[in-house]
């Protein structure tokens, strides 16, 4: 393995990780409110196809990315209406949204499969920062959405742990009854958190179809939404750790697709299995510290809230 190849893997890894970081940070915000959203995969798909279609029409990747956010947030709204409004089971509702998102994105994208987009996000070298040896090329010679990802991670961490609304969010996820008793609207908080998570998932999808691999094929995300959900557990619901994990997973993905370049001759099908197997392996390893992880999980995660039932 040449130093150049290692560098290439890290550069591609940061890009591949950005998709996961967006989705995982969004899911952290959702789960911090006590709502489990297993529909991330479906929301990413809808975000990806919407972003791609809008960009195809007007040639503005930024507008495409924003459209992806809105589409993801709309899917989040649907999840919230069901699990918060109708108090439906959060696991099944999320799965239904994965299936729905799969179908909707496939339907919407029928006409653009394999078409090249008119414009994409291209790398921008940040002045000064990009001239740092090695790190500059890995971290600061990326496209604008990667930088947006850095800001988002820091912002999400600051929001969740250092602001009043973030405290309210966490209290709703830990004990909705208590939060309700002190006058925090559980319903409103959960609606906003789920929509916010959906929006980030949509952005993650749009990043995939507009920057990381600018194209659309059905089922483009290929399980990345589920990897993002696993990352949330790995990150103990902390955005900073989610970033660390996301970029690490991105590097694994980037490495596995370059294995043949480093002389490992295994069929592409086995190479493609690596990110999934790696995710399962990580879940196994982190389960050793099971107690801390269980304590880190929002206590009310997965439970619906009805004010008059106790």
């Amino acid at each position, binding site marked *: 393995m040449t130093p150049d190849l290692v560098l290439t893997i890290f550069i591609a890894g940061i890009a591949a990780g950005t998709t996961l970081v967006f989705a995982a940070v969004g899911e952290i915000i959702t*789960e911090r409110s006590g709502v*489990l959203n*297993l529909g991330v995969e479906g929301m990413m798909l809808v975000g990806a196809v919407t972003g791609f279609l809008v960009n195809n029409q007007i040639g503005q990747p930024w507008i495409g990315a924003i459209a992806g956010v809105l589409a993801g947030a709309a899917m989040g709204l*649907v999840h919230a209406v*069901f699990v918060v409004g*109708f*108090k*439906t*089971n*959060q*696991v*099944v*509702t999320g*799965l*239904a*949204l*994965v*299936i*729905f998102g*799969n*179908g*909707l994105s*496939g*339907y919407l994208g*029928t006409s653009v499969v394999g078409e090249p987009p008119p414009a994409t996000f291209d790398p921008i070298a940040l002045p000064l920062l990009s001239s740092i040896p090695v790190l500059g090329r890995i971290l600061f010679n990326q496209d604008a959405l990667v930088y947006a990802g850095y800001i988002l991670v820091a912002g999400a961490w600051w929001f969740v742990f250092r602001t009043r609304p973030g405290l309210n969010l966490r209290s709703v996820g830990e004990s909705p009854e208590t939060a309700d008793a002190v006058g925090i609207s559980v319903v409103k908080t959960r609606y906003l958190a789920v929509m916010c998570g959906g929006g980030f998932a949509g952005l993650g999808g749009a990043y995939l179809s507009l920057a990381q691999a600018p194209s659309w094929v*059905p089922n483009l995300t*290929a*399980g990345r939404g*589920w*990897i993002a*959900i*696993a990352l949330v*557990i790995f990150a103990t619901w902390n955005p900073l750790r989610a970033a660390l994990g996301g970029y690490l997973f991105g590097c694994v993905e980037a490495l596995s697709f370059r294995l043949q370049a480093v002389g490992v001759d295994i*069929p592409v*099908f*086995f190479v*493609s*299995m690596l990110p*999934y*197997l790696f*995710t*399962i392996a990580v*879940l*196994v390893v982190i*389960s*050793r510290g*099971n107690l801390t*992880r*269980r304590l880190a*999980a*929002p206590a009310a*995660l*997965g*439970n*619906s809230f*009805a004010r*008059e*039932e*106790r």
Partner: protein
Amino acid sequence: MSRASAPIRPRLVKRLVPSRSMRIGVRAGAVVCAFILAAIFLLLTGRSVGTIFGAMWDGSFGSPYGQAQTILAAIPLIFTGLAVAIAFRMRLWNIGAEGQFYLGAFGATAVAYAIPTAPAFILLPLMILGGMVGGGAWAFVPGILRARLGVNEIVPSLLLNYVGILLVDYMVHGPWSDPQSFGFPLGKPFSDSATLPTLGDTAVHAGAIVAILAALAISLVLSRTVWGYRVRVIGENARAANYAGFSIARNVVAIMLLSGALAGVGGMVEVSGVVHKIQANISPGFGYTGIIVATLARFSPLAVVPIALLFGALIVAGNELQTVGLPSDIVLMLQAVILLFALAGELFVQYRVQWRPGSSSSAAPAIPSEPERQAAASASPSIEAG
């Protein structure tokens, strides 16, 4: 609770006992509403609703050919639906039935290619066994992780779907690829003795009987055996089961093995009864639709059968859509919407809407009784995270 001057507004009151008639009504209503939504969607995109729904009906229930196709699509759904249902009886979410289905096909194919000349009465049971081993092995992984390490089974079982599909992809592109398939990812055709017989002169294969027997057997095991009783106790109250001395870890693994084996037999009957060889894309999402089937059946093995027929018809109707120039993705959306409506309708099964202000004679007690809580808990179970 409020004064007489309070404005009249709807209020949800918990039912003492979930309404049975409402439950059936909600499911039927969910299907009707989903089709109305689909009709609006088609109208908005400028399609002829009559033509499209007509084609869907003719292709599924409306013609003898369609009926056979519907049953053929329902067979794998019965197996994946049973797989999800039995796992959920212990509050386990096996959302890996898709991968277990592929591995079942893998196991059955390995047997079929190893001893192609064996007589059918030996080969077919061995292929079923191969399917059970393949599917069971795939479900064993999330099962043992859950039992020994406390890893939630949802994400591992789902991720293994991708791995299983890739494994079959590899086999049909490589070791099992048919030299006469001109590069298409197909395996060699099965020998006659590796092919399930059809029932009479219909297109329906004997897997239909296996599927119905499986549903009956699972139902009996759950309701009539000691083991089935333990499984239900663990599912409804793990703490009580623990005090009673039932090994939760061992039963988690056992139930996941059984669940995976069921999905695996689904894969076996599909390759042996329908495709007659191994190939890529043997499933249009049978494992995922199985989750919907099991949920709508309220995880009852016997109710899985009729609901699998309905969703089999939907899948077949989806193929029909392609003949009128629409992507079959619409059927995926339709499936999800039916499930979502049925889930939302569950609110009206558990609660009733009270329009009058103030306290009426039928006001619900403030504190639900214990059986009521359990009924509510079993209707909307929560999962542990992590």
